[in-house]
Every structure is written in structure tokens, then in C-alpha cells.
């Protein structure tokens, strides 16, 4: 039998959902118009006042918001309430040293926790479960999101954070974790480590909630087989709140978007035109319940499809497909957003030529990021220790910019292909989409 965390919301009628959205959208538009100069100016430029937005039908009139806008507004430019009302900051990695920071009031955190609690219940979770969270904690939203959802539900929460596989497995065995939350690639890595150690029959996992990176149906099948669990997808982004913007149910055919909190649109990434249901395009979110950091028409750059077909789980909220690609050049490596421009910035700052190639592989279920850089006379020395010290300096600078480790391969000058048109900067061998 299907369980719900908030059945009155999750299974509300389409009319009710629409009513909530109309009301909350108008309220949010008024809220940001009154409190955020950035929005007010942009709306004024389009000749819009809050009165022009009467329902979801008017949403298309509002300008889009992009990651570049968020960076421009860093840190407080889009804050819609007094800082003293905020209780939390989360952040994504960002280009050129400027990160995107999102603010939360207690009210915002409560709603985020609810969204994650819905996801845990949809994966079969109850307050009797032991929720093992090995998403990273800290500025990254993965850990705090699922942690909050598990608390909200009343499950026993294991705030493991990422890494230290030995300890993860030990706790999983000793404390009888039942629901695993991490990236799908780490889940597969854990699964294989558990099998290698002959501990498969010592674990009590029944389900996993896996997100923060793209994964295929084959990978789902593999994880489910190896761990003997059901594997559910979860989607989110820091800008909109974090994980739990949408989540999978027992049907495992797409993720229900929490429409009482977020309005989803699909647009043509080239023209910005809103596309009808069922068409593939870029996902755009408007958050309609947030106090501190509400975003209007935020372009996610994720390409997917929305569907309102009735779902066998009984939930009525619209479903989004797994992301099928990106409308920009962002890569997700080990669950972390990586932009080629970040890598370029580091190279230039360190005196390397901006001619480079990024190679992403998945080795033993773990992503690897290799960056090929051309050697220059300035960087070269007759001393190996000097050259390797410079190489290490570059690796460290990349780590601090990207938040993940990348290997650097120094290659001979002019060996990286110069293309006439758009440079081929990225070779992604993972075949995720």
C-alpha cells in the first residue's frame, strides 16, 4: 500500500493544486516586487507590476532568471527578507570564484524538510526506519536536505556525510540502516564494496534515494540487484531549495514535482517560448512558498519532459522525466557541478594556456575528471621537482575551485586539437543520458 507524508497535499485535486499555485504565485510576485530591487527593476523594464500577474497563466510574462543573474546578485542581491530572519545558508560551487548562495528562513527550512520527508515516505520510509545519509554535509544541500527530511518524518537519522567507505559499511551493518541516501555512483561503489567483503546478508537496506547526478535505468537495475533494494531518484537544486524539488514514487517512472511549492515550466532553450506538456525542453522553476530566496522563472538548464498522466501511486503532482541532458556545458562530476569556465579561470590564473581538454570517465562506479593542459616554456624547468610542484599547485587550485579532485595531464604544446568553430573542451565517456 502506498504511503504519503502529506496525503492531503500530495494527492490533492488538480484544481486544488492550481488554486494554491495561483494564490502563492501572486503573493510571491508581490513579495519580491516589494522587497527585491533586482526583481522590481526587471519587472519595471518589462512594464510589469504585481497586478499584472493574476494567476499561473500570467507566469510567462515574467522575465527569466539565470545562474548569471544569481552570481551578479551575490551575495545579498536577491534576498527577499531581512537577514536577521534567515537561519541558514547553503551554496553551490560557482564559476570565477563567485558562488551561488541561497538563504533560508526557518519557514523555508521546514518546507524543504517536508519535501524531503515526502521523498523518504515515497521510498517506503517510516519513523521506524534508519536513514543513512552519505551525501556530503556542509554547504552542499544533499546532506542537510535528506537529514532534515528524515528528522521531519521521525526516522532515526545517521548523518554519515560522504567518504570513509569502511565506516559507512560498518555502521550500515552495526546500526542496521534501512534507507540509503547518496549519489547513485557512490551507492554502486558501496554495493560492490559490501559484496567484496561478503557482507551482503548482514545489511538490512530496503530502499535507496539517489540523486545529485544523472543515472541511467541500467544503473538503477544494477544497484537494485546488488543491494537487494528499490532505488529511487530524487531531484533538486540549491537555487530552488535543494534535493526534494521532485522525487520518485513506487511507479519509478519519473519524479513528482512538489507543485504546492514550485511551479514547473518547460521552455525552448533557444527562444524561451513555453512548450506544451509532453514536449522536451529546458526545465524552469518558480518557487512560490519561500520567504528568503524565492526565484521567479529560474532556468535550470536541465532538459526534460513533464507529464500529467495519472500515476498509479495516487499522487497528483506533475512528473518530470530524468534529466536528458543540459542546455549549457555544465558537467556533474561526483555529484558536483563543474563548468569548463571554472577550469579555464584556474588555468589562466596559473599562467597556463586556455587550451585544454576535460575528460570525464566512470571508473569502478566513481567519476574521474582528467584535465589535459599544454606545457609552456614558462612552466617548464630542468628540475622534475619544480615541474611536479607546479603541477601540484595547479591540482590544488582546481580542487579549491571545483570542490573535487581532478588529475592534470601535462601534454606537449599544440597537441590539443584546435577546432575552427566551437572548441571540443569536454569528452564525457560516461554516457549518462
Amino acid at each position, binding site marked *: 500500500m502506498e504511503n504519503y507524508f502529506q496525503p492531503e497535499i500530495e494527492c490533492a485535486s488538480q484544481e486544488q493544486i492550481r488554486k494554491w499555485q495561483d494564490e502563492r504565485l501572486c503573493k510571491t510576485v508581490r513579495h519580491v516586487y516589494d522587497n527585491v530591487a533586482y526583481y522590481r527593476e526587471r519587472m519595471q523594464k518589462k512594464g510589469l507590476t504585481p497586478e499584472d500577474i493574476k494567476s499561473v497563466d500570467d507566469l510567462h510574462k515574467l522575465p527569466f532568471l539565470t545562474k548569471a543573474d544569481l552570481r551578479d546578485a551575490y551575495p545579498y542581491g536577491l534576498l527577499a527578507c531581512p537577514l536577521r530572519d534567515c537561519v541558514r545558508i547553503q551554496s553551490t560551487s560557482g564559476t570565477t570564484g563567485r558562488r551561488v548562495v541561497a538563504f533560508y528562513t526557518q519557514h523555508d527550512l521546514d518546507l524543504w524538510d517536508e519535501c524531503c520527508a515526502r521523498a523518504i515516505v515515497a521510498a517506503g520510509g517510516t519513523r521506524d526506519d534508519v536513514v543513512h545519509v552519505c551525501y556530503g554535509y556542509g554547504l552542499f544541500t544533499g546532506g542537510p536536505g535528506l537529514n532534515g527530511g528524515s528528522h521531519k518524518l521521525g526516522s532515526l537519522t545517521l548523518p554519515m556525510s560522504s567518504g570513509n567507505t569502511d565506516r559507512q559499511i560498518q555502521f550500515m551493518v552495526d546500526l542496521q540502516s534501512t534507507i540509503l541516501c547518496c549519489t547513485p555512483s557512490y551507492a554502486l561503489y558501496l554495493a560492490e564494496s559490501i559484496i567484496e567483503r561478503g557482507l551482503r546478508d548482514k545489511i538490512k537496506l530496503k530502499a535507496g534515494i539517489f540523486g545529485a547526478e544523472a543515472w541511467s535505468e541500467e544503473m538503477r537495475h544494477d544497484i537494485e540487484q546488488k543491494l537487494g533494494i528499490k532505488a529511487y531518484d530524487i531531484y533538486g537544486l540549491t537555487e530552488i531549495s535543494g534535493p526534494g524539488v521532485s522525487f520518485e514514487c513506487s511507479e519509478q517512472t519519473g519524479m513528482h514535482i512538489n507543485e504546492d511549492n514550485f511551479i514547473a515550466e518547460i521552455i525552448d532553450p533557444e527562444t524561451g517560448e513555453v512548450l506544451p506538456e509532453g514536449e522536451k525542453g529546458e526545465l524552469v522553476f518558480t518557487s512560490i512558498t519561500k520567504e528568503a530566496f524565492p526565484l521567479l522563472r529560474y532556468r535550470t538548464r536541465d532538459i526534460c519532459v513533464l507529464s500529467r498522466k495519472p500515476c498509479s501511486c495516487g499522487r497528483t503532482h506533475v512528473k518530470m522525466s530524468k534529466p536528458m541532458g543540459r542546455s549549457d556545458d555544465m558537467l556533474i562530476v561526483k555529484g558536483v557541478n563543474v563548468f569548463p569556465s571554472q577550469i579555464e579561470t584556474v588555468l589562466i590564473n596559473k599562467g597556463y594556456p586556455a587550451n585544454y581538454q576535460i575528460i570525464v570517465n566512470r571508473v569502478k562506479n566513481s567519476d574521474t575528471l582528467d584535465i589535459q593542459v599544454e*606545457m*609552456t*616554456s614558462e612552466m*617548464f*624547468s*630542468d*628540475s*622534475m621537482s619544480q*615541474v*611536479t610542484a607546479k603541477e601540484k599547485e595547479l591540482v590544488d587550485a582546481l580542487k579549491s575551485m571545483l570542490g573535487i579532485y581532478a588529475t592534470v*595531464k*601535462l*601534454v*606537449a*604544446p*599544440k*597537441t590539443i586539437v584546435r577546432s575552427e568553430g566551437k572548441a571540443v573542451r569536454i569528452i564525457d565517456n560516461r554516457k549518462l543520458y
Partner: protein
Amino acid sequence: MSVNQISVFLENEPGKLSEFTHLLREHNIDIRALSIAEVENFGILRIIVDDSYATSTVLKNAGYVFKITPVLAVPLKDTPGGLSEVVDALGRNGINICYIYAFTARQKDKAYVVLRVEDNEKAVDVLVKNGYTPVSQEELRLDD
């Protein structure tokens, strides 16, 4: 009192050294001494050639990344213990050797070590005091 060593960046891949040696052969460049320091992905090839100026022009035109460093080429007796005397003298005087490699001369019973140190002048002082005079690029050529 020093000779010009040419260090060249080479990728650690099959055929790269071969390519390089072909280039030198094509331009009639004679390698007198050679050593390679390598890590997983690349190597630093260090050579002493008869004509370092001509060689650097060739390498530049071929697009290699390279560097010229003055190093000390010290003649030794090509007998057991020959090297020990030289490095002992440097060690006693607190001079660290960054790297070292050897080559034999065309004359019988004669050998050289190439020494890379932080301070050439100081090292030359110590060597001369101990009866070892590093050769110049000119002298190296006269060895023929």
C-alpha cells in the same frame, strides 16, 4: 666553466623519444650526454650536445618546450673511486647536487659527470680547490 644543458619536455608515450632523436639526426646534432627524469605522464629529457645554440633553434622551430641551463661538466679519472672524490668534496662543503649523470669521453680513461647544483660559482670554487676543473662548452668540443 659551465656547459649548456638542454632540457626538453616529452610526453611519456611510445614513439616520442624516437621522434625527437630523428629530429636531431636530421640536423646532424651530436648528443654527448643524455639523461631522463620521468613521472607517469611525462619526462624531462636532458642532453648535452656539441652545439647548443644550433640545437635550440631546431627545437624551437619544431615546437618543443625546452630550457637551457648552465651545468657543470667535471672530468674524472675513469677508475674506481673517481666519482667518489668529487661528490665527497661537494658534500663536505654543503653543496647539494640536484641531479647528476655521467658520460665517457672519446679519449681513453676519461669520463665526465654532469652536475646540476643551485650555485654554480660556489661549486666551481670547491671543485677547483680539490683539483677538478669543470670544462667549458668549447673544451667539451675539443675533447673530440
